[in-house]
């Protein structure tokens, strides 16, 4: 079985726009300043398309996925 995807944030680029948490609340919440708090465990398989959508939606392209 291939390994799952894991989310990570490029903190230099991240601006705290918050679209990722709107699109993937299953794995991303926002802290009190609007920056993402990421669930670092591998994503459930059914969340992977949604995660890729959140990655593409990030205004700064600061949200990334990698193979866990």
């Amino acid at each position: 079985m291939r390994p799952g995807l894991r989310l990570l944030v490029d903190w230099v680029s991240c601006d705290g726009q918050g679209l990722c948490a709107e699109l993937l609340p299953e794995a991303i919440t926002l802290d009190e300043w609007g920056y993402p708090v990421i669930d670092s465990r591998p994503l459930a398989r059914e969340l992977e398309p949604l995660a890729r959508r959140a990655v593409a939606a990030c205004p700064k392209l600061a949200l990334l996925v990698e193979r866990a």
Partner: protein
Amino acid sequence: VTSARSGLPVDMQTLWFVTRAAGLVSLVLLTLTVVLGIFATSRSVGSHAWPRFLNQGLHRNVSLIGLTLLVLHIGTAVADDYVSVRLRDVVLPVGGLYRPVWLGAGAAALDVLLLVTVTSLARVRLGHRAWRTIHWAGYLTWTLAVVHGLGTGSDAKLGWALAVQAGCVGVVVGAVGFRLTDGWRAHTGWRLAGAAGVVACVLLVTAWAEQGPLAPGWSHRSGTPRHSALTR
């Protein structure tokens, strides 16, 4: 059945009517695209009931619908024999046979729009900086589209069509005004330059429209071929 105005069969006019209608509708959709794009950049346009990804997703989808209408606008203009729009005139901004400068503005608008669209579809691969630099050209393509519409549009002088075009300009100017005053007041110099640029563009286009497309004799001055059924 022949048209009283041109003496040509009505079914031969269908393509030409579609061209004109699709042109105006795509201007409205491009206008909506610009406004949604401006809203998508703003932290203040978003709430629990209207999350920010809606602005972004609508910006994307409305732009693609607008592009589809543009394909119809261009396809019917080429297919129609009323005006000589060749395939080369679709993308080459110079050397057209029908109101060449203003047809050229439309070709340039299409070229820039395609560049903006393709780079957006490849945004994740392209990287944020390069994409964003190119994406500023969205304002250029919209402005060229307005000028093209006024310069070539055979309906541009009609009251209701003029109202639609003025409405589009007003809405975009309002949205840019919002963008320039929204959020942190960083980049004050750029914001002032942007405001000055918008005012200059509006004055320039208005002055040109008054002397040009809205003044008598434009069809002749803009280079409508003598044999064209549209010369009137």
